[in-house]
């Protein structure tokens, strides 16, 4: 099995799906000749041509809207938003249209669309190149939101998203693009959307998180193991709809739960995870549910010390895990 980077897993999934199904095509700003500002679509233009790798005007609402039209016709568009921060002009198309097409037509029409977008901080991107936007979409039945943490999950879940018959938002952590590497099979495989993945088993505490924070938690868990603290790490992978069963199971198992997101704390994806645990696991808990998240300021500042202050990092995760274990 080859070891490849997170972003190469994105490219591999797109490439394989475009080879497999001629109805799959990509569109977005700079995805063609340039191969994307992060190079996620590198080589696709040369292989599949400009008809299937479409450089669009700067026009987020139309990128989503045109893709929705093509999807309703029966194609399988994969639209790229250059940064998750820039998805906001397309929110009406995503929420009022894509998410509701099956429901509002009583199953007559459907919208098999994928929208990919790089999100997350730690790249000196300031307020508008660092945001986590999943909470905006995470209470919209009809949508699915996938946020993978490893190259293996990226490839298997992106392929699944492209084959899914409903709209999927696929958020890729941009700091993970080249930082995170891992083993990825060359062959064709898909992973189930809607299923969390237990990345590490343990007995004392449970960490539930997603994206880059999974790696912070795994590294911290390894260190804490030496101190005799055994931690479970559940990677949500799909943040909407949540895998209720897996969440309840791991929360119940240790009775001590730390929830982590890189997003602002208030009303985030982990707020719903907390509610779910409170609803189902109250009598199995041995400590209050603990949350680690970004502060409730509008978005991530640019200057390095300010960015570090905002970001969840390994040290903060380790500290919170130790604190919870000692409760």
């Amino acid at each position, binding site marked *: 099995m080859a070891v490849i980077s997170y972003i190469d897993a994105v490219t591999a999934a797109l490439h394989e799906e475009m080879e497999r199904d001629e109805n799959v095509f990509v569109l977005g700003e700079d995805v063609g000749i340039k191969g994307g500002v992060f190079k996620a679509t590198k080589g696709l233009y040369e292989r599949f041509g400009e008809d299937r790798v479409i450089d669009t005007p700067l026009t987020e609402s139309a990128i989503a809207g045109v893709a929705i039209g093509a999807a309703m016709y029966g194609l399988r568009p994969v639209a790229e938003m250059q940064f998750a921060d820039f998805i906001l002009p397309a929110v009406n198309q995503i929420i009022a249209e894509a998410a509701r097409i099956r429901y509002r037509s009583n199953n*007559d029409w459907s919208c098999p669309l994928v929208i990919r977008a790089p999100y997350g901080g730690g790249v000196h991107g300031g307020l508008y190149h660092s945001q986590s936007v999943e909470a905006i979409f995470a209470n919209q039945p009809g949508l699915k939101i996938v946020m993978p943490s490893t190259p293996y999950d990226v490839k298997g879940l992106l392929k699944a998203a492209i084959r899914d018959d409903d709209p999927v938002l696929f958020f890729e952590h941009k700091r993970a693009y080249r930082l995170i590497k891992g083993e990825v099979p060359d062959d064709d495989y898909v992973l189930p959307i809607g299923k969390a993945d237990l990345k590490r088993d343990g007995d004392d505490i449970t960490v539930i998180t997603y994206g880059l924070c999974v790696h912070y938690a795994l590294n911290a868990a390894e260190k804490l193991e030496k101190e005799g603290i055994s931690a479970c790490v559940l990677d949500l992978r799909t943040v909407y709809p949540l895998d209720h069963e897996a969440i309840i199971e791991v929360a119940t198992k240790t009775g001590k739960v730390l929830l982590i997101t890189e997003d602002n704390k208030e009303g985030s994806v982990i707020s719903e995870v907390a509610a779910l645990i409170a609803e189902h696991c109250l009598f199995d808990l041995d400590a209050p549910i603990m949350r680690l998240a970004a502060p409730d300021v509008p978005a991530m500042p640019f200057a390095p010390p300010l960015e570090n202050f905002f970001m969840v990092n390994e040290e903060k995760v380790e500290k919170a895990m130790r604190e919870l274990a000692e409760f």
Partner: protein
Amino acid sequence: MEKVRHEQLGLCGQTVLEMYEKMLLARKLDERMWLLNRSGKIPFVISCQGHEGAQIGASFALDRTKDYVLPYYRDLGVVLSFGMTAKEVMLAAFGKAEDPNSGGRQMPNHFGQKKNRIVTGSSPVTTQVPHAAGFALAAKMKNKDFVTFVTFGEGSSNQGDFHEGLNFAGVHKLPVIFMCENNQYAISVPLSKQLACQRVSDRAAGYGMPGVTVDGSDPLEVYRVVKEARERAASGEGPTLIEVLTSRFTPHSSDDDDNYRDPDEVKRARERDPLLVFGHYLRRTGILDDVREKELQEKITAIVDEATDYAESAPYADPEDSLKYVYKE
């Protein structure tokens, strides 16, 4: 010369009579829905009255066996032309389970019916414009010979999705026809407060496509320009923006009091009622006479009666059915 106007357009007497019949059906259905609303039987109406000439003229210029349409809420005439029945329209008005648009989930006139290539729509206006570009992009990519037809009001021509959708279609020379039904009002806001340019069709220049303005009370003229636009689209020459000048004879919807315009304005507009204009033409050309007109009126009244009775007594969906079809099942 006038006598053969429809023949010059390649239309036979039977087809123009069929167009008139569709216009009449749209009008009578619409009028019935107002009666049902005012008698407390259905909660909402939004009308096509005044737009029928534009809608039916345009629809008949399309290939109704393969083209895709993305209608907006006034387009009763378009959906009837594309195969939706009076009964189906009434089922939607009553919100009944059998409503093919949405099974009673959406408000009336939120059209959609896949088997007739009527693409599902929503309430936030203009979102369908980029969708139309998407259907047209699919036609181009898959080398299919259908054309996509999308409609909207002139208020919608101020929305970002209008500009983004037209620009995308213009850049890619997509086989799509954009038709604006300009009835001069976005609810209460008159044209002078909506557009900084004189005509909606002026906007076409910015997107590299022809812009045409046409009189909506004349279905044959609308037919002619849509036919030309379809030929352009089908031959790879790209999109066209058509602005049809119409009037709305009713308030914006059943919840609007129409207090922002002079009633005389509507009275004057009714003198150019597309049904009257087209009816006169058909009489002058000997296609319509009193006997035919009476037959048509009776036939349509019977259709509307039957549709109303059927829909009124049809069952609602089970409340628990609200949980269905969030995702593929």
